[in-house]
């Protein structure tokens, strides 16, 4: 399981880096979304994986019996997903506004805030 997850994370990161190297900032944002999901999977995997063992405490006991799934990383990932959702919703709207205001999504042409020498 860990190996499979590691390969998945690797593929996600590879695709993300490829997208992030593009000149179009929209592609860059898509890359970021992919890589953020890879980060979420890293947290999930670092909590160690278990198969079919929900962290439930049997009646009468104070702690779960035997090896059960680690609930903490799942809570962390949930938080990270929610935060990431907010951030990327903002980023996508920003891309839309960028396109309507500047008329381009090519990062090479975005020189309004930092004009080239002699340009103003």
């Amino acid at each position: 399981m860990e190996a499979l997850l590691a390969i998945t994370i690797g593929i996600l990161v590879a695709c993300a880096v490829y997208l992030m190297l593009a000149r179009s900032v929209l592609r860059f944002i898509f890359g970021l979304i992919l890589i953020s999901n890879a980060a979420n999977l890293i947290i999930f995997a670092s909590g160690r994986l278990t198969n079919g063992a929900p962290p439930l405490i049997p009646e009468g006991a104070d702690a779960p019996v035997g090896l059960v799934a680690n609930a903490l990383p799942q809570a962390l990932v949930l938080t990270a997903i929610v935060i990431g959702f907010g951030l990327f919703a903002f980023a996508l709207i920003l891309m839309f506004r960028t396109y309507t205001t500047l008329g381009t999504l090519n990062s090479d042409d975005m020189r309004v805030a930092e004009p080239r020498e002699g340009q103003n």
Partner: protein
Amino acid sequence: MSWLLASPLVLPFLTAVFAFLLRHRSVGRWVSVVGNAALLAAAMFLMVEVLAAGIVSGQMGGWAAPFGITLVADYLSAVMVVITAITGLAVAVYALGDVTERAEYLGFHALYNILIGGVVGAFITGDLFNLYVWFEVMLISSFGLLILGGSKAQIDGGVKYVTLNLISTILFLSGIGLLYGMTGTLNLADLARTVPTVENQGLVTVVAMMFMVAFGVKAAVFPLFFWLPASYHTPFFSVSAVFAGLLTKVGVYALIRMFTLVFTLDVAFTHTILLWVAALTMITGVLGAAAQNDIRKILSFHIVSQIGYMIMGLALMTPFALAGAVFYLVHHIIVKANLFLIAGVAERAAGSTDLGRIGGLYKSAPLLAVLFLIPAFSLAGFPPLSGFWAKYVLVAAALDIQAWVIAGVALVVGLLTIFSMTKIWAEAFWKAHPDGIAPTLDRIDAGTRRRLILPIAALAGLTMIIGLYPEPFVGFAETAAAQLLNPQAYIAAVLGDAS
């Protein structure tokens, strides 16, 4: 003890809620001022308690550490919270005269207070994942503030700011995941205890580097600073000021916290890198500033250069050098926020911040000229202002351990800082206005003028006080450094004596 720690966190968010609900009325803007004044009071209470007890810690929700979320304030955290509140209040007053009604209607004051709340949270949390959450709170509100107004330059700068900061966020998150995988804990004090017991110390160093890059982006160190000069000159002056004062410093704080508390086992490796980073940050920042011709762009590059000094204090890792870094943080936040506020007044009086298009401010607005000189010379390190002592402590600390090169770099960069400051002085204040007009503060109506000048004068006064009576401040910084270098007290305060 809990309310002492929780109130500086709760107040900004309460303020934000009321400021948002009342944003249609003129009373809404005063909510922000009152809220920030209350935050300052709460920060002072916390400071008094920290001065008495050394380290104050509290467990939120009653879950004992390391399982619950810990809030903890040592000397460094407490002083950062106080300085955040001071800057927050000063800029909140300034914003009354600076921000347009349209932006207020769109929720400027709410976003502003959420930003302050995020900064305070980052300073007093004792939990790594919680630190990530505060970073995000800070980040999302700063996104909003940065593009409020929606001009072309703001959108353009915003894209660079947003994208590069998101990369740092993801690195930070991955680092948290890997560190948790190795240690099974996210409580900073517990991490300090468990990280040395990890079998594969090579992996710890790898993760340490991930954190270094993630926080390095936030702190705007070389070679990760490009988002800063691309965006800091575009928003409202009040937004520029609070960003310049506080945001990068949260990154520096996080670096100091992680690399004195958690990642201290391979100091020879990590802190050597930090030393190089510090030197290159100082040099590139100051050279970048020399090439600029706009007040806000010059000041933006100087943020980068000054960050180098703080990283230098951390990299040298001696008690005196860390004390210098803490002192520098405090001095720099006040001075840098103030310089951006002054740039705002200069623009209103003279019509631009482009040095080629303005001039003559000394003749027509001598008060502004004096108020500029104080933080500008402090930034450059003139005695007897606060910047002199900050640089003096750092350079003396470097000479103490025969780090000649970094001491030399720090001194040369200080000299080049004077060059930039005198450039602003000569162009904006001394030379005649190119259009032949006499810029004057009378162009600003009296009420607005008071709101703009008052916070500037207050911050300049604070710079003078720190400069003239540096002893208690240096003494405080030395205690803070001693706490950072001996984390046992921190660990004991958070985890109790069971450790």
